[in-house]
């Protein structure tokens, strides 16, 4: 008998009598989502800024990142200097200093933003880059994770990730250090 069949048979013999699947929970909120989001991401070690236009983001990048370093932009209106469509092997992204990607949904309670392979030609991009900028439309902010999952369809997605801050660790004596293996900083522009 296959291991699969052995395991399924053992479950069949040993499982408790059937219980019902509870209904999905929802907790509607009337909070100011932008204010809540900004507060949450600050707690996570990231930064959020409200901007009026993509031009403001372009200016921010010019003011904060040295010329000559690699920038990958997944947004047409924001200039990058690495042509992502010509990158076939994700290892070529090793020297990327800044990646600019778009987020699809943001959860205000914990600052988590859904980024998926719909907008990511290489899954490793938001991790291998030294710094990360995510652009999110304010209209796509929701109060909490229950609402966030109502807005995304996992069957439609090969890979997606909620990103809630910069990479971090507290594995050495519980001291928080920002910049473990992924991006050293996360800046979210709410537009």
């Amino acid at each position: 008998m296959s291991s699969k069949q052995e395991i399924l048979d053992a479950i069949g013999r040993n499982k408790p009598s059937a219980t019902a699947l509870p209904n999905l929970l929802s907790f509607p909120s009337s909070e100011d989502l932008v204010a809540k989001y900004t507060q949450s991401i600050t707690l996570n070690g990231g930064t959020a800024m409200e901007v009026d236009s993509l031009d403001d983001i372009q200016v921010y990048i010019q003011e904060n990142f040295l010329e000559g370093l690699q920038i990958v932009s997944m947004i047409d209106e924001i200039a990058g200097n690495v042509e992502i469509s010509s990158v076939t092997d994700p290892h070529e992204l090793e020297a990327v200093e800044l990646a600019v990607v778009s987020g699809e949904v943001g959860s205000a309670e914990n600052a988590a933003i859904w980024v998926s392979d719909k907008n990511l030609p290489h899954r490793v991009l938001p991790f291998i880059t030294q710094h990360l900028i995510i652009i999110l439309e304010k209209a796509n902010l929701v109060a909490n994770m229950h609402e966030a999952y109502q807005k995304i369809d996992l069957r439609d997605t090969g890979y997606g990730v909620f990103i809630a801050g910069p990479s971090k660790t507290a594995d050495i004596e519980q001291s928080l250090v920002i910049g473990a293996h992924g991006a050293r900083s996360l800046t979210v522009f709410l537009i």
Partner: protein
Amino acid sequence: MKTHTSHAEAAEEFVKDEERTHWHDETLWHVREKRDVAAHKLPEWEQLRTNASLIKDYVLSHLDGLLIDFEKNAQANGVEVLWAKDAKEHNEHVLSILQKHQIKNIVKSKSILTEECGLNHYLEEKGYDVVDTDLGERIIQFVKQVPSHIVLPAIHLKKEEIGEIFHEHIGTDQGASDPKYLTESARLHLREKFVQANAAITGVNFGIAETGGFVVCTNEGNADMGTHLADVHIACMGIEKLIPRAADLGVFLRLLARSATGQSITTYSSHFSRPMDGKKMYIILVDNKRTEQLGREDFRNSLKCIRCGACMNTCPIYRRSGGYSYNSTVPGPIGSILSPGLDLNKHSSLPFASTLCGSCTDVCPVKINIHEQLYKWRQVVAKEGPSDPVKKWAMKLAGATLSKPGLYDFFGSMARKALKLTPDSLVYSSLNAWGKQRDLPEVPSESFKEWYKKNRKSHEQ
């Protein structure tokens, strides 16, 4: 007969260093306090716990059907699914995948299941170099230790010790112990490993039956750095890790990190459904006695565990005895109800490593009745497990005495007289474990019953 080191014996080693014991206790209590702050911020916290527990009830009572759905949906996504009835078969599956793809360099993110299966050791024996990429796990891997906590693997080590380890293994400056400097050095060291890796092994936090996908949570980003650069991704998953619907993640992701470290969510919650073009993704579904635990009515709820570690951080015994004293892959209260199911003889002392205060049950995000199960395991151990003959004899005598009031009064008055005469050398003798860190209270001259008889009379007059 006892054939394994008991929790108390192993803990003795840990508590020898009083300062360290105190520090360990305080550090974990601090994490527990952060958990409280996070939980109290959500008015719906108790509703989330109840809902999560009910979802897991549903999972346990429909596990076979959900696993079949999960496999079918994962296969439709282009993922290969393998089944392993025990640790050995799990390890063999991993090996055959590595051989098939001629893998040389392997990176691994944190997976308690692979610890349970002894995967690293198995692969090392076959000549593979497995690089653990979670910072805490990398630290202890250098010194050939296992995690002492499921969320904070190196919590038993001080930064100076980690500085020493890094100096020896990755060439950091001698004497350097700044966590920021050490983390940065590990980042550079592990980036090299990520870039060289051909295969990435991860655990699974949640498998989603309706989509065939799975979720891996990290703060460091190591699971993603590994899987997205390597050609082959092997995800190792205990069969109990399933949830029915994608939307159930709303509940579990709200509970997991808040319970674990007090964060509102881990930095990265990565949802894998399909492999990238030209790459391979495998899921290994592992039983390893989980189906046996499912059949134990009193203990099956332990399979609801989402491995947050909250019960360890709150446990007065864990905090003061350290993870290694449990001698089990999953230590602490949850480990003490899971491990006896894996090997009752080896882990028979663990249900006794508890004050039964119930704090573990109070903080458990999926409402496992941990302290009740500890109590029930004690009864199983008394019946079936190895036991300490001295304790057994003492319990029999106590049982006989407590059931006969006359005998109880007699022994009570004898004991009050005898204890006054007992020399310290006997109270604090090495045979009497009780006297090791305790002083006897002053022995009263009469029992409460005697006192009450006298005083009631004087009160009535």
